[in-house]
């Protein structure tokens, strides 16, 4: 597979009165053409900031990308001029957000919003753009497209708006779509519809997808590869099977154990991760997960564990991986 996006040691910080927030603290990962990569982790761990950094959409001030590189089809996005990055956005890389209302313009018809993007990025005529807009709505399963195009965002339900957003995201034949919690605000039956739609369309059109979510079920169902984030860092990465069946980071294990599951017999008690996630302005030289970790040793207080190879395609950032393997053996 050809690498489409390569993020290397990306660092994004916010300079606030409470201190410097190390929101993204040296993350590296790649996305291959046509592949679905998930980013999971608890709220505040830097998922959205890492995605917004790719498109250089970090509000500046208070934020700034302070280091690293983002290579996308041979260009470092961090070195492009404002004009050049604007041409990447909306065309080669597009985004779908949790709340489509914030990214749709409430006073413009759906047609206007779709055709403007198409005309701008593809230098198409209005007529061509209109034809494409109809096609796109049909593609995302909105019937009566001609009529629906004349309507405004508030005429659409939450699920329908998300379909419109997907149509927009696909409008200029992008190579990569970044979907930030695209179904978090939706009910479970609508979530299933939207995710199936995204999966089948990206597959059919060969578009790569980065899906950001905190829902472990969604990840298991849709992702080829998974990056688990904690406190601004990727702490484990691998195939979905690596993450769900051979986790080598205590945080990943903790996440998996804390959710009740519909497919397994009911248990008496859940196993939560104790305490709270850390304050990102007060990270020290140790592993950020240490205060919540039952495997932590002295070394974890003073040395940040690097993301190390576990086996082909599977990486974890933990000094106590042997202890995890040992525990797994004892249990089985």
């Amino acid at each position: 597979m050809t690498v489409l996006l390569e993020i290397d040691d990306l660092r994004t910080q916010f300079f606030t009165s409470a201190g410097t927030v190390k929101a993204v603290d040296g993350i590296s990962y790649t996305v291959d053409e046509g592949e679905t990569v998930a980013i999971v982790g608890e709220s505040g761990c830097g998922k959205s900031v890492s995605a917004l950094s790719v498109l250089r959409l970090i509000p500046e001030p208070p934020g700034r990308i302070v280091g690293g590189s983002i290579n996308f089809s041979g260009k470092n996005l961090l070195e492009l001029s404002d004009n050049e990055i604007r041409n990447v956005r909306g065309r080669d890389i597009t985004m779908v957000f949790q709340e489509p209302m914030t990214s749709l313009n409430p006073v413009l018809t759906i047609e206007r919003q779709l055709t403007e993007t198409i005309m701008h990025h593809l230098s198409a005529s209005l007529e061509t753009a209109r034809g494409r807009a109809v096609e796109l709505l049909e593609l995302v399963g909105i019937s009566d497209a001609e009529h629906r195009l004349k309507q405004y965002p508030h005429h659409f339900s939450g699920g329908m708006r998300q379909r419109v957003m997907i149509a927009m995201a696909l409008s200029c034949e992008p190579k990569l779509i970044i979907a930030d919690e695209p179904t978090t605000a939706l009910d479970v039956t609508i979530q299933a519809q939207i995710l199936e739609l995204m999966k089948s369309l990206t597959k059919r059109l060969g578009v790569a997808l980065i899906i950001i979510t905190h829902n472990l079920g969604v990840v298991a169902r849709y992702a080829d590869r998974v990056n688990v984030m904690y406190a601004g860092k990727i702490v484990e990465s691998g195939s979905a099977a690596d993450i769900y069946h051979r986790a080598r980071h205590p945080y990943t294990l903790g996440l998996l154990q804390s959710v009740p599951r519909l497919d397994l017999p009911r248990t008496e008690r859940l196993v939560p991760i104790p305490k709270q996630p850390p304050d990102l302005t007060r990270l020290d030289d140790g592993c950020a997960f240490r205060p919540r970790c039952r495997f932590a040793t002295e070394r974890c207080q003073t040395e940040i564990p690097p993301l190390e190879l576990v086996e082909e395609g599977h990486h974890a950032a933990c000094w106590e991986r042997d202890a995890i393997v040992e525990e797994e053996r004892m249990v089985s």
Partner: protein
Amino acid sequence: MSAEMVKQETRQRMAQTDTTKPLVEIKNLKKYFPVTEGIVIQKKVADVKAIDDISFKILKGETLGLVGESGCGKTTTGRCILQLERPTSGQIIYDGTDMDTVDRRELNKLRQRIQVIFQDPYSSLNPRMKIGQIISEPMRVHGIEPDPATRNKRVNELLSVCGLSPKMADRYPHEMSGGQRQRIGIARALSLNPEFIVCDEAVSALDVSIQAQVINLLEDLRDEFDLTYLFIAHDLSVVRHLCHRVAVMYLGKLVELAECDELFDNPLNPYTQALLGSVPIPDPEIERQREHRVIQGEVPSPMNPPSGCVFHPRCPKAVDNCKEEIPGLREIKPGHWVACTEV
């Protein structure tokens, strides 16, 4: 504890609860919200049928789950029980007393026994009050523990019961994390020694690791204080974990009600089946093998619900008759109620 023992524990609990004497009994409850038009002269043009003739019981000591997609009427049901909303018709009988017929003094007494925990801990806590004040406020309002010293002692007790440090009494809500704020909401709900708590999406906004902490806390408190919960949630796996019986709502109607294991192992209403089939399982192997039948369409407007069975336009099993006949809730097996003519 093995899975079989967990099931057995639930069965024992159900056997012990006196089904003839429910704590809460809801009879033919309806709540319609008028939709008006016009600015000077407001004219009613339609009704939002938020709850449309539902009946069920909540037994003493049980946790009854109430699930369904947003807008199906879960919160309105809870608000009616809490007397925050006046039903359009129907009865709510609490411990043998019809809440509509009691005088104010008695209603006030009943209200002390019923508390609520909301989804959004932040918006339900007064930002200008210290945590200690927030927790003691209900005691002050109801004139319980008038002595400030004993009241403070009680606040400290409540904080530690909910896994918080008594030192937090002097801090403000904005200094707390989401999980801590939810614990404060729980401590406040417990301050009047209630016997019944409506948990409306009480853990839905929390991250999974923190959610598990709060779920365990709710379970501990239930055992320690013999609490009865109405547990409103849209997360089916959480409901399965916590509840003894589960009721499923769709568009203002009750479509299925059964003991927890029975409902999840043997769902009979096509809507319940569709809901369960839509939940992705956190295991890639299982997901690969699982058949994905996504149900089409969206929930129709409660202002203009479909004729007959309200689910028929989306139902994979609908027949012609479903467009006409409104299915009533029938007891198919002991304790398993379903509203579907095709079962």
